[in-house]
């Protein structure tokens, strides 16, 4: 079973509804029973990446390697070690969809206030290496219009999103 620990406050939700910019919220789930992993060893799960919904990102190792490097850095800073006999498996999934938001400010100017934007979601999973049971999941959503086209910007936004997600990993994990 999972416990939802969401830090998305009412103020943020209001800003999302009323404001012109899409907030970048990070959330997470943690399993209620997490087996001990005293060595804190992990490895990347094998298997093909799922389609992102954006052909520019599918099988794009510039994107993939940046995500993996950022996650490796975050885990290392929390005392995790990448190794051959892992206790934990790490995987991620990225997806891009169009989303709409309504801007209250624009409505008063006689415009409809409806806008469409590209929403990117990055999900990071930590699973038990023994039985592949999901132990922790963190994710972040961001408005990413123009981001994929600018490689440097994309790298910064990946680093930022991974940092926000991994901050939610419990220190006791």
């Amino acid at each position, binding site marked *: 079973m999972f416990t939802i620990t969401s830090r998305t406050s009412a103020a943020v939700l209001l800003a999302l509804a009323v404001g012109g910019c899409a907030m970048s919220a990070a959330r997470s789930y943690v399993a209620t029973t997490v087996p001990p992993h005293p060595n804190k060893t992990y490895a990347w799960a094998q298997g093909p990446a799922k*389609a992102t919904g954006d*052909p520019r990102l*599918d099988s*794009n190792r510039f994107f993939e390697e940046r995500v993996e490097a950022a996650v490796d850095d975050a885990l290392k800073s929390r005392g995790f070690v990448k190794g051959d006999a892992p206790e934990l498996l790490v995987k991620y999934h990225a997806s891009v969809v169009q989303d709409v938001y309504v801007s209250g400010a624009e409505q008063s100017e*006689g*415009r*409809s*206030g409806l806008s469409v934007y590209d929403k990117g979601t990055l999900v990071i999973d930590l699973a038990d290496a023994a039985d592949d049971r999901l132990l922790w999941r963190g994710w972040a959503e961001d408005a990413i219009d123009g981001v994929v086209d600018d490689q440097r910007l*994309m790298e910064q936004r990946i680093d930022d999103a991974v940092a926000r997600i991994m901050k939610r990993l419990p220190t006791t994990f």
Partner: protein
Amino acid sequence: MRTIRLLTLAAAAIVASGCAAAMNVSSHVEPGLDLSRYHTFAWGPRDALPTGDPRLDANPVFQDHMMGGVLKELSARGMTLGDARTADLLIHYHASITERIDVNRVDRGYGYCTQGDCPAETREYEAGTIVLDFIDARSGRLIWRGWAQRSIGKMLDSSDAVADTADRAVTRMLQQLPVHP
């Protein structure tokens, strides 16, 4: 004579404006990539991406102009077309078409609506994306990826429009390649 020339120019302008839909082009590159290390190239085996949209991928005019355009541009850079088994560089392209929505907001200033609730017009359109990958044959690693995106519109109805789109896409994508040192 003069009338015919004017009509031809007018027709060309109309065709050009109709076909010249805005095209978004960009790329990702391996830092420090030096293309002068690559002397031969070849079309690589079917790529790892899911099957492209056959309306483009299986369209002989599209294929012809994509491959022809890449051959011309890389030859101009001093590379030669070789065998897939021995070439330095392997090239794939992949074309996909997805449904997207666009929102046209109706502006009160144009007199289309006077109430506070001006309606949004959402329209669905088909967006085409061409992805062009350069793979180092020795390492198997992607060293450069370019892409071109534009709305499909009526492009698929005309071989000329398909050819023109492929030509423009290849030219603009390859302009993104790092310049020779």
